[in-house]
């Protein structure tokens, strides 16, 4: 009979989730499960609607990464139409996607993980929070806000609204970029560069040194990585080819057309969670052999090069201890590199002469009854797969979200942290923090598959062999 530790936190937008740790008879952590307890799929809702509406519907489902859904959905639409969208349209879509990377990564690094990173895991819990962080380093917190605002402004200037831009459509985008808006973005860029460079310095000089043990433990396990690389093998967030690599650096799949993703990704279902468990198909689900990671760490590991000068320099540093970085803690660094890369690409793209070209939309009718759209969301690869009838009405919809793809890896991370830090039958604050931080590495977001409203306190329960409650912790 095994014991269970249950962490049952509640999140607002992103869904109900909890973690259970299964202890064996020796009191050792045998298994870890990341549960998603509610599922409100909107796939069903979309059936019978026109695929034309999907970008705006899916973008409205999620308040966290609307742009990613917008991209994947519009691209799925492109393939149903069978069009190659105009060059300017692709540039504009990429710009918006990079804006999204900047604002989302900034939130994750500066505000969500910031207190742990800057103040240290074992620091006084009364201080180790955003307030403590702000008190210690208000400049850091303000930097985060300014960087987020830049990312949001890029999205807003393109799409009209910072949330829910209905601007990206099958066939391209709805509005070209005006010269005034382009100049406004360019004007805001230098400050963003300053901020990200300060953050990189802080990370490299202070954070890593302060978290040697966490760096070694958190999510440090061999796994596969999956993500997009550009057609040339560079860092990529919008299009390109699917690459699969293991943590030794062996490339299992150099570049698969995304529409063939089902050749490498299959989805398993577990009774204890509504979130599906995607795995690398050739390795199978048995024993979680097909476990893989997506997101910043995966992308930065997968690419052959970054493709922009500053990011390229950081990438070399990132890889100073080897081609592949397995430590989950490095997600933080990868995020900063991606922000830097995104800013460089935004600058490069805005300076391209054709970015303000007026031809931004291809017109076509339904030419294919099946479409796949892929994009790199801040937290990893996102697939939209649609089947339509001749009229364009959706017959079936399947979405594979990044958080789902990291599901197995998050379980593994939680297991590792628990094995390293669980001692006896008592729970302690530090464990709770570390479990949280371990999850937070992946920056999970479940709002498109789950929801919850209201705030419940974070609770941890420790159960005895027969399920009796041994200990409990509550936060909030």
């Amino acid at each position, binding site marked *: 009979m095994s014991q269970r530790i249950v962490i049952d936190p509640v999140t607002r937008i992103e869904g109900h989730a909890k973690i259970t740790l299964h202890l064996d008879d020796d009191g050792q952590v045998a298994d870890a499960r990341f549960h998603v307890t509610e599922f409100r799929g909107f796939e069903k809702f979309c059936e*019978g*609607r*026109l695929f*034309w*509406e999907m*970008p*705006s*519907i899916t973008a*409205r489902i999620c308040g966290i990464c609307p742009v990613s859904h917008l991209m994947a959905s519009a691209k799925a639409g492109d393939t149903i139409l069978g069009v190659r969208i105009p060059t300017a349209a692709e540039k504009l879509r990429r710009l918006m996607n990079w804006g999204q990377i900047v604002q989302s990564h900034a939130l994750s690094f500066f505000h969500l993980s910031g207190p742990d990173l800057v103040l240290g895991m074992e620091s006084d819990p009364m201080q180790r929070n955003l307030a403590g962080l702000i008190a210690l380093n208000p400049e850091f917190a303000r930097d985060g806000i300014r960087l987020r605002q830049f990312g949001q402004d890029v999205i807003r200037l393109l799409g009209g609204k910072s949330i*829910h831009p*209905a601007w990206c*459509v*099958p*066939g391209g985008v*709805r509005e070209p970029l005006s010269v005034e808006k382009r100049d406004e973005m360019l004007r805001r860029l230098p400050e963003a560069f300053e901020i990200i460079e300060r953050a990189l310095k802080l990370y490299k000089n202070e954070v890593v040194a302060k978290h040697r043990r966490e760096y070694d433990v958190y999510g440090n396990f061999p796994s596969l990585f999956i993500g997009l690389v550009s057609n040339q093998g560079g860092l990529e967030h919008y299009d390109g080819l699917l690459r699969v690599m293991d943590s030794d650096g062996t490339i299992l799949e150099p570049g698969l057309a995304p529409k063939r993703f089902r050749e490498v990704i299959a989805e398993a279902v577990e009774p204890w969670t509504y979130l599906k468990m995607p795995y690398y198909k050739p390795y199978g689900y048995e024993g979680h052999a097909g476990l893989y990671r997506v997101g910043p760490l995966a992308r930065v590991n997968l690419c052959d090069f970054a493709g922009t000068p500053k990011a390229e320099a950081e990438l070399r540093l990132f890889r100073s201890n080897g081609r592949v970085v397995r430590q989950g803690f490095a997600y933080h660094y990868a995020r900063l590199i991606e922000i830097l890369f995104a800013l460089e690409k935004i600058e490069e793209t805005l300076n391209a002469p054709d970015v303000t070209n007026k031809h931004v939309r291809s*017109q076509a*009718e339904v030419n294919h009854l099946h479409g796949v759209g892929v994009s790199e969301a801040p937290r990893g690869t996102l697939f939209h797969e649609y089947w339509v*009838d001749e*009229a*364009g*009405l959706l017959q079936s919809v399947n979405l594979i979200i990044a958080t789902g793809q990291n599901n197995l890896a998050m379980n593994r991370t939680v297991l590792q942290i628990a094995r390293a830090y669980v001692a006896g039958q008592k729970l302690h604050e530090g464990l709770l923090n570390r479990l949280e931080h371990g999850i937070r590495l992946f920056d999970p977001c479940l709002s498109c598959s789950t929801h919850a409203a209201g705030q419940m306190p974070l609770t941890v329960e420790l159960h005895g062999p027969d399920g009796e409650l041994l200990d409990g912790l509550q936060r909030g």
Partner: protein
Amino acid sequence: METVVTLTLNGEMVSARADQTLLDVIREQKIDLPTLCHMQGLSERGGCRLCVVEVQGAPRPMAACVTPVTEGMVVRTHTPELEHQRRLVVELLLAERNHVCAVCVVNGHCDLQWAAAKLGVASVRYEYLHPDLTMDASHARFVLDHNRCILCTRCVRVCDEVEGAHTWDIAGRGIKTRVITDLSRPWGDSPSCTSCGKCVQVCPTGALFEKGATVAEMTKERDFVGWIIRGRTKREWTW
């Protein structure tokens, strides 16, 4: 010879031709009265009830679009009670089908939305009926989304009275009423439809729209019916 009548409109004496409806006169006087089923150039239906006005001596409010003017009529158009009742009508419409403005092709260009805004309908107190409705995207150029139809029958009337095809009609009754094409066959299979698109243009909501339009993208050309009628009757073909 035209007969002229005099009536009192919101306390003002106004004159009108005897063959005019109350709505004609109200619009002539630049009084803003919301309508949904009315459309200049089409026969009147009197179904949406938004243009109801208070006529002295009448036991209940009268729909201005179908009420002929009469001598000595005393009419009030915007009493608090009328405004309140109009709001309830719009609330009923919003709750009747699956109107999700946020993902609608005519978001921002919708007569129902305008009426709601104009009347200050900020919320709907009725339970949404959530009917299980389909879309008909079989037509090469246009789409019918029953979820957004308010059964004003402008499509039915413009098709019958202006285009002369009578492709559209109504089937069912009560809350189960639906617009249909021909004898309820898919629009794309309709032998009578001329694909002229008049129904799409007169549709007040996003129930009829052009294929390929995405959220908030579809605007409608409402004036063309009057233009066609003027052209046919007076041989004036200028805008």
